[in-house]
């Protein structure tokens, strides 16, 4: 809400200036009708009277400037007080609503009562903020109640934020606890199923072995999902730990690409990794100082795995290159692409695309959010580029070298 002085103030001050400007003409009229023969000397008086009128007109312009530029802006958290003092003095200050101690309103005299304006004074408890005073405020009682409402709303909002924050922390703890428990059960189940499927418990009938193998695959997917949730929970709690050690990013990416190549081949996708050999004299290096396990599993693997999942047909191209002290890894696919709307929430928690669950129903929506946090924890950046849906996408990671 923007508050200016009441229009009566402007009309009163401007009117007074204009009347003052016209008074000499009244005298001139009286003099010209006087019976003493002054008419011959009125020409210089007319010049002076017009000069006076011009000065009064300039005063009107200055009154309008002060009226228009003296403003209070009331928001839900602050009052911004803008004072235009003269021509070259402008004061802008902020008064926080949570520091307001007392608001007093005064309406005096016939004019203020009839036109409903007056003065308002706000006392603040903050030692760094000055009290605020506004003369000629329209409907001051309403402004007072509005400010009080905003204060009440602000206090309520602060309380709700605290409750929400506590609830969120409790939920994060619960997710963490449940995640660990579920992971523990799934790991035990995976172990038992692996023992059956891989024949550690002796020979079992072929259908049982196949069923155990299939169940083992699903259980491992479950473990991956729970790991994603746990990593997301760690990142949200701010307890994401990064253990930095120098490692060869090219070797790490190559190993993942080799591991995931069968998945791409099963879908009939072209799958190529281009990594230039760096001549020793070039001074470039693929050695990163970072948490290899997290970058490999949550970033590089995630991007390649996503490219395979979201590309029904076509090809995937990966490039790793250096640019000075930056290692750049790109994964380009010819898959479903990303709409501008999905692009906005791509790297947020649970940031599924509108149609992504149809292509990849197992997605938790945490993968890219975790990847972003890990990359940023290494001082790097990650982003995606896509013209639109159906045109494929490119995911790019840039990380500083060791």
């Amino acid at each position, binding site marked *: 809400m923007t508050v200016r002085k009441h229009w009566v103030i402007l009309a009163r001050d401007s009117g007074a200036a204009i009347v003052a400007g016209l008074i000499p003409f009244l005298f001139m009229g009286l003099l010209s009708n006087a019976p003493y023969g002054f008419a011959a000397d009125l*020409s210089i008086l*007319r010049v002076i009277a*017009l000069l006076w009128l011009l000065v009064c*007109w300039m005063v009107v312009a*200055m009154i*309008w*400037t002060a009226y228009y530029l003296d403003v209070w802006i009331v928001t839900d958290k602050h009052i911004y007080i*803008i004072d235009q003092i003269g021509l070259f003095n402008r004061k802008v200050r902020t008064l926080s609503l949570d520091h307001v101690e007392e608001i007093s309103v005064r309406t005096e005299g016939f004019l203020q009562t009839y036109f409903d304006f007056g003065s308002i004074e706000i006392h603040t408890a903050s030692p760094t903020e000055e009290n605020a005073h506004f003369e000629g405020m329209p409907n001051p009682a309403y402004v007072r109640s509005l400010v009080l409402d905003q204060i009440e709303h602000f206090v309520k909002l602060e309380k709700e934020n605290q409750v929400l924050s506590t609830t969120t922390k409790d939920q994060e703890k619960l997710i963490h606890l449940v995640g660990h428990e579920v992971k523990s059960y799934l790991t035990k189940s995976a172990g038992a199923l692996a023992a059956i499927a891989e024949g550690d418990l002796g020979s079992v009938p072929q259908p049982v072995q196949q069923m155990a193998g299939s169940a083992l695959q699903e259980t491992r997917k479950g473990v991956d999902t729970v790991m994603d949730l746990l990593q997301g929970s760690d990142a949200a709690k701010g307890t994401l730990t990064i253990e930095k050690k120098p490692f060869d990013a090219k070797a790490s990416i190559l190993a993942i690409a080799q591991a995931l190549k069968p998945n791409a081949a099963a879908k009939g996708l072209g799958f190529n990794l281009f990594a230039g050999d760096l001549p020793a004299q070039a001074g470039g290096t693929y050695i990163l100082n970072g948490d290899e396990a997290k970058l490999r599993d949550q970033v590089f693997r995630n991007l390649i795995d996503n490219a395979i999942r979201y590309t029904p047909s076509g090809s995937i191209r990966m490039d790793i290159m250096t640019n000075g002290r930056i290692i750049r890894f790109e994964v380009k696919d010819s898959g479903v692409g990303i709409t501008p709307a999905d692009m906005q929430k791509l790297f947020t928690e649970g940031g599924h695309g509108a149609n992504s669950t149809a292509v990849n129903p197992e997605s938790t929506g945490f993968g890219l959010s975790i990847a972003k946090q890990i990359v940023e924890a290494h001082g790097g950046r990650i982003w995606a580029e896509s013209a639109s849906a159906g045109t494929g996408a490119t995911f790019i990671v840039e990380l500083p070298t060791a």
Partner: protein
Amino acid sequence: MESNAVSGFLPLLGWAIFFGALALSFALGIILSFHWFKYAMNPSAAMTGTILYSAGCVIILALLLGAVAGLS
């Protein structure tokens, strides 16, 4: 002789007043419109203010010019 000196001084004073007023209104106009365009939240209010101020000054200066010319 004395009357001629006074009648020569008045037009000179009149022209000095006119050009002084012209310079003052122009300078104040520049300063005020700078404030209006820089700080006003509504650009059309700044434009309206500038037009009104300029129109008022033009009318008063035109009357002043006529009055000064009448002194000669």
